[in-house]
């Protein structure tokens, strides 16, 4: 059965919260919150079900983190948002924006992690009120090789994701737009690249130790040794303890390709995941291939893919879905949700078989997070 869901929507112009009934059929809208603020991520703490953190900035003002301890009813600013230490020369980095907020391990209440642009890893141990840099990454001797100052996305180079192993809080993965995936076994104290067999077609050595653009990584919730990755150069799967990724996107239809921003694992089936392909040909339009939006699903760990497009426009649908804007809930059947750069919010309540539009005319959607209500 399904349960009531809240969708936490971050956009280029503010945040919205959509709340459903238990059947996920009727939705109410709450917002805008912080109208005009650039909201890269809005996340509920699953450990208490009421604390929310919001990564925000504006066109003019510097970046900050807003906190709510009452499910989004009221907000206060973090006393000390993520910021690099004072430094000289090239090392004088300043946070342009926080991009990713990750609640810590269930056994570490109050711990949160943040990834920023330029790439930086930050940790809070007081529920997001104060933040400190993680020197193990930010001051790593290879930092400038992993995160060159001229690398990155149009919005800047990113430490775009943080994944914590539910079995071990010291075991972490991060994804970056300039160095690929990195792994830590000591709570971020030290890091190693984890990019074997992942292509970087834009470098002279197309399979380097690091330098890849890891758009999104996700653990399979029921097989924590399985990592999915949507990379700038294809769809991959990694089954630990191996350190060699397999390009499962080669099984996608060639006219669609395997380029995209994000990948969503099934909450209960470790062989199932969804992607939202985009056009990565020629000048990289980064829109739905052919103007026909579709999700693709694998149910055999990437050996094959099936198209799911019922309800989406049959033509002239030039969707782009960014890294943080596609997610699943834990319902039975699974609900899927995606937000487009054109400000549309779409959902499927039957595991992708059919889609319907929940909202139009929002600002450009940066992130969609589903959480129990």
């Amino acid at each position, binding site marked *: 059965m399904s349960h009531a869901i809240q969708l936490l929507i971050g956009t280029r112009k503010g945040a919205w919260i959509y709340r459903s009934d238990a059947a996920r059929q009727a939705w109410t809208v709450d917002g805008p919150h912080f109208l005009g603020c650039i909201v890269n991520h809005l996340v509920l703490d699953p450990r208490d079900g009421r604390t929310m953190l919001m990564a925000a900035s*504006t*066109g*003019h*003002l*510097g970046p*900050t983190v807003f906190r709510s301890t009452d499910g989004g009813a009221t907000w206060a*600013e*973090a*006393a000390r*948002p993520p*910021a*690099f*230490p*004072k*430094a000289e020369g090239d090392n*004088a*980095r*300043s*946070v342009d924006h926080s991009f990713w907020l990750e609640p810590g391990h269930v056994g570490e209440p109050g711990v949160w992690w943040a990834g920023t642009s330029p790439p930086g890893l930050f940790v809070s141990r007081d529920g997001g009120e104060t933040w400190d840099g993680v020197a193990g990454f930010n001051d790593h001797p290879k930092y400038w090789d992993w995160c060159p100052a001229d690398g990155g996305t149009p919005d800047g180079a990113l430490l775009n994701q943080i994944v914590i192993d539910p079995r071990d809080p010291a075991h972490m993965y991060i994804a970056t737009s300039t160095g690929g995936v990195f792994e830590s076994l000591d709570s971020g104290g030290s890091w190693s690249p984890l990019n074997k067999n992942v292509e970087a077609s834009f470098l002279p050595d197309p399979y380097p130790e690091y330098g890849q653009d890891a758009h999104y990584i996700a653990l399979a919730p029921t097989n924590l040794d399985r990592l999915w990755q949507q990379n700038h150069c294809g769809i991959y799967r990694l089954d630990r303890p191996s350190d060699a990724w397999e390009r499962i996107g080669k099984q996608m239809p060639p006219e669609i390709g395997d380029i995209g921003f994000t990948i969503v694992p099934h909450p209960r089936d470790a062989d199932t995941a969804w992607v939202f392909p985009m056009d990565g040909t020629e000048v990289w339009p980064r829109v739905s291939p052919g103007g026909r939006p579709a999700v693709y699903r694998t149910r055999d760990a990437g050996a094959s893919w099936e198209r799911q497009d019922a309800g989406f426009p049959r033509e002239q649908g030039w969707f782009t879905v960014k890294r943080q804007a596609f997610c699943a809930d834990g319902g039975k059947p699974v609900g899927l949700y995606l937000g487009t750069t054109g400000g549309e919010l779409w959902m499927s309540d039957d595991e992708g078989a059919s889609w319907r539009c929940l909202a139009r005319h929002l600002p450009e959607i940066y992130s969609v997070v589903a959480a129990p209500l």
Partner: protein
Amino acid sequence: MPRVSLPSQLQSYSGGLSRTEVPGDTVAAVLDALDARWPGIRFRVIDEQGRIRRHMRIYVGQDRVLDIGRTLSEDEEVLLFGALSGG
């Protein structure tokens, strides 16, 4: 005491005030005094390296401030602006 003009972007901190006065003999000291009154406001204007953020502007009277170490006299006015930042 130097006068300070606050742009709309910062008035969520000042409770809607657009003008105030705070002590300080440099622009940096004025910003510190503003932050002591309204915590968080300084970091929205000045980054962690002490640089004025790209889309903020600071003037003392008619003079553009590029270094927040600029000294102030008691009767000068510090004007903060949100500059153009795109659509």
